[in-house]
């Protein structure tokens, strides 16, 4: 497997309400409703991403591979369902940056090798939909390339980086002697 890049650049989707403020406490039922828990095919999961978050139901049609999500505080609260991470991976969403994350959501994203960065000062990037965002996992830099603004984010921990570089938690385990 080719080495995975230590930075990500892509078109951003700030998950905001009608007034433009980040939506806090987006829970796993809003991200991936429990009506679809029986789905096991990852490709199909993409269809239901944000299906239960007001104003975001058309996200699966609009998202393109390589896009990045920018989210508010305590994103992914609620259940432990892995689908709330996998539905975005299915759409090719390249990663997520957020003010903060629910612990289990963070664990699931890290285990899946899906880039997740915590950035308490996210709002200072003044991200608008479609702006180009750059995230550096090693230095912890978050840059709004379009507007020329930079804020510090938390770099990946060694553990997160090792799992990410291997691909996912299972791939990391398979490499052990």
């Amino acid at each position, binding site marked *: 497997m080719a080495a995975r890049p230590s930075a990500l650049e892509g078109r951003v989707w700030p998950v905001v309400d009608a007034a433009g403020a980040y939506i806090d406490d987006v829970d796993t039922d809003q991200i991936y409703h429990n009506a679809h828990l029986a789905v096991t095919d990852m490709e199909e999961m993409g269809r239901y991403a944000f299906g239960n978050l007001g104003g975001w139901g058309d996200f699966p049609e609009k998202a393109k591979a390589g896009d990045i999500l920018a989210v508010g505080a305590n994103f992914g609260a609620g259940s*432990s369902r892995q689908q709330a991470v996998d539905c975005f991976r299915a759409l090719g969403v390249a990663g997520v940056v957020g003010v903060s994350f629910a612990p289990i959501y963070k664990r699931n994203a890290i285990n899946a090798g899906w880039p997740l960065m915590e950035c308490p000062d996210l709002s200072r990037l003044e991200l608008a939909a479609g702006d180009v965002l750059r995230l550096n996992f090693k230095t912890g830099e978050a840059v709004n390339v379009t507007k020329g603004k930079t804020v510090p984010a938390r770099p990946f*921990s*060694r*553990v997160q980086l090792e799992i990410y570089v291997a691909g996912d*938690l*299972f791939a*990391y*385990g*398979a490499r052990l002697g």
Partner: protein
Amino acid sequence: MPFTIVEKIIAAHCGDDVYAGATVWVELDVRAARDFGGANVVQNFEAHYAGQPVADAAKTFFTFDCVVPASNIPFADNQQLCREFAARQGIKVYDVDAGIGSHVLMEEGLARPGGTVVNTDSHMNIVGAIGCLGQGMGDADVAFAFRAGRTWLEVPASVKVVLKGKYKWPTTAKDLALAMLREFGSSGLLGRAVELYGPAAEALSVEERITVASMATEMGAIAIFVPPSEEVLEWCGGAAGIDVRGVYADEGASYEATYELDVDGLEPLVACPPSPANVKAVSEVAGKEIGSAFFGSCTNGRLEDFRAAARVLSGRPVAAGVVACAVPATRRIYGALLGEGLAEELFAAGFVVSNAGCGGCAQGQVGMTGRGEVQVSTSNRNFPGKQGAGETYLCSPATAAASVLMGTITDPREVI
């Protein structure tokens, strides 16, 4: 630099000093899976690590406790899948006769003070009772732990809870756990490692510590640690057949907060549907008619819990129309119930006395409720659907015994 209990345990298992907030690889002394989740662990392992060995078979276990012995084919299939994997890998199985995995691991000396354990059991943090770090994890995480012998953890922030005053029988450690839930709710200790101090904490027996620590999950806490007393170290050392040492916090360690909880003269409490944090005094709901009672679970399934129930009953029978079930936590306790004559005493009072396991708490076969059924239970969760379709009131064995005696929710002080 001074460290908290959880920081010290993690540091000893990752080879580095750690503080709250760090994310580190942690060596696991015990990696286990139950019949719930175990089959998924095996499937994940075979899908990703086909033909590879577990990291250390001597530290890897299956602990069957949910539907034991299996009363349906899916669970029987899952148990057999685990047994066959275990045979291939040389892993020990604590089979359907053994009892609740978290308790078995303590009794066998596998979970011990200062150690680290994961299992597919959301109450695995119960081993905080003996100063051990346990975590419940999903099947993917546990499959990885089987393969790698370690997992990753974010070191949690620690808080102190200092108990003030003392309470007396028939108020028990279960009421203390419920008092903590009343105080902190289901999220007041979210993601925190709790250390319990004060004379009322120090005085807790091993069994009482298990009861309190078992409800950390309902409080959202990573774990509740009670610094091991001499009695605890002897109990664990006896189980392990070795000398064990407790891990204690350093003077000056960093706590996010210190809370005082006044338990002086605490009265018997009950958690009403629909959640463990919906705590009221028993006297507030006294008189509510019950149809059944469940005595057991990882929270109150120990010998002392059945002794407490028998003490309240004092030879008096279960009220007509009430079904009372007793499910010991482990085979060892089951043996003691038989040996001490307690099983016979409960049987004579009208109880169903079953083999060891989780019982209705894990939707096992003993203690499930039907729609409209009102149950008192010594377990730890009463969410809708958790212990069947009825309404479950969580209380101590003493309160449950008083209630089966009268056929209504009853303050044990009224009948002793």
